[in-house]
């Protein structure tokens, strides 16, 4: 599974990454999690603002910090 956290590195983006990694650990799932900090690359994802969470190329949340439950749900959907 390929997970991308989009955001220029503000605290809100780091929170999304933290929640994602926690969710993966709780579900005991492995994934390739990476930050995308480059503004031009972020804009290629068609998101409505940062922080944004992209799982397997699909934009799951943008412009907000999703709840841990939502993140877990999306991970399970993409498995």
């Amino acid at each position, binding site marked *: 599974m390929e997970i991308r956290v989009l*955001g220029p590195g503000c605290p*809100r983006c780091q929170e999304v990454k933290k929640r994602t990694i926690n969710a993966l650990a709780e579900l005991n799932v492995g994934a390739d999690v990476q930050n995308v900090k480059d503004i*031009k690359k972020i*804009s290629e994802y068609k998101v409505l*603002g940062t922080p944004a969470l992209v799982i397997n190329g699909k934009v799951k949340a943008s412009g907000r910090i999703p709840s841990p439950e939502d993140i877990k749900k999306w991970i399970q959907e993409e498995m």
Partner: protein
Amino acid sequence: MKDKWIFLIFLLTFLAAYFIPFHQATVQNAINEAFMLLQDYAREHVLLCLIPAFFIAGAISVFVSKASVIKYFGAKAKKILSYSIASVSGTILAVCSCTVLPLFAGIYTRGAGIGPATAFLYSGPAINVLAIILTAKVLGYKLGLARAIGAIFFAVIIGLIMHLLFSKEEEKNREASDFAEEEEKEPRPLWKTTLYFAVMVAILVFINWGKSSPELKVWYFIYQAKWYIGAALLAVLAWMIFRWFKKEELKEWTFSTWVFTKQILPLLFAGVLVAGFLLGRPGHEGVIPSEWIVRLVGGNSLGANLFASVAGALMYFATLTEVPILQGLLGAGMGQGPALALLLAGPALSLPNMLVIRSVIGTKKTLAFIALVVIMATITGMIYGHFFA
């Protein structure tokens, strides 16, 4: 943080500790001023102004659906609508300056092109809700209002000029594409969300109601009753929160309020200390003599306004720190016009973000944007200074 940055901070702290002449009266006085200004902020602005403002900012980032706003930037949206939305949406979209640039890049590459994108780029940082509230509270409502209105007009005019200058090359290389995301389902009707925000803003306005002379009957009456009005509104807000929101949402709200506070408050208070040290409280002097300030940005000359806007454009202000710095400058003799010029050119531009903007829209457009901001900020500063000095 990378180790080399930590080392740099250590080095600078060491050099400062080694070389600053702490025994001199001016320096001692300036340090005193720095902490007096900090105390002033802690006593006057934290409880009644900053804390409610952070809660509003947190609520905006959780409860305002961004999709409903951004769709107006899409390639198919009407141009007039795009510009109007771009110029005011900064209030609700860009609560912290770190969200402006990615949004700008997104709007530019996917959306309605250079015009609305630059309009948003300009207005976003200048009229975000925290900045307006603190400007009005600390620097006076006139300057706060001038900042908000100036920023909205600027945004539209700069966007239109950019569109006229560059629309030809735009046509060639822009593919019409819209945003990918579906609109999220609203968890509650729009009127409830609107009312909830209205009550929060009303609380902020009423508990900060300034004293006025007893002749202005209504104003004075509101001033006397402000705590009762505030308490009543707070009760209404509590009822709304209890009835309309799920527990989960409230947790998110508190959390995002906390994230903003954590991000902004330390920088703001560092800014207050620096401003106090360099410039002193209004009516007092820090290490920089007031005559220098008066000579550079006093009065309302073309030179003063131009200097203020160029300095503002180059300097980096962390969210909200422009307010204590301007407070210090105004106290040291800066004119009202140059102050507005700095407020209008400052938050939208800084050396680091010029580089990011350049990587998105290229050198020529970036230079045009910077020139437009500086020229317009100078002119607006002069007009404002002429009428309100």
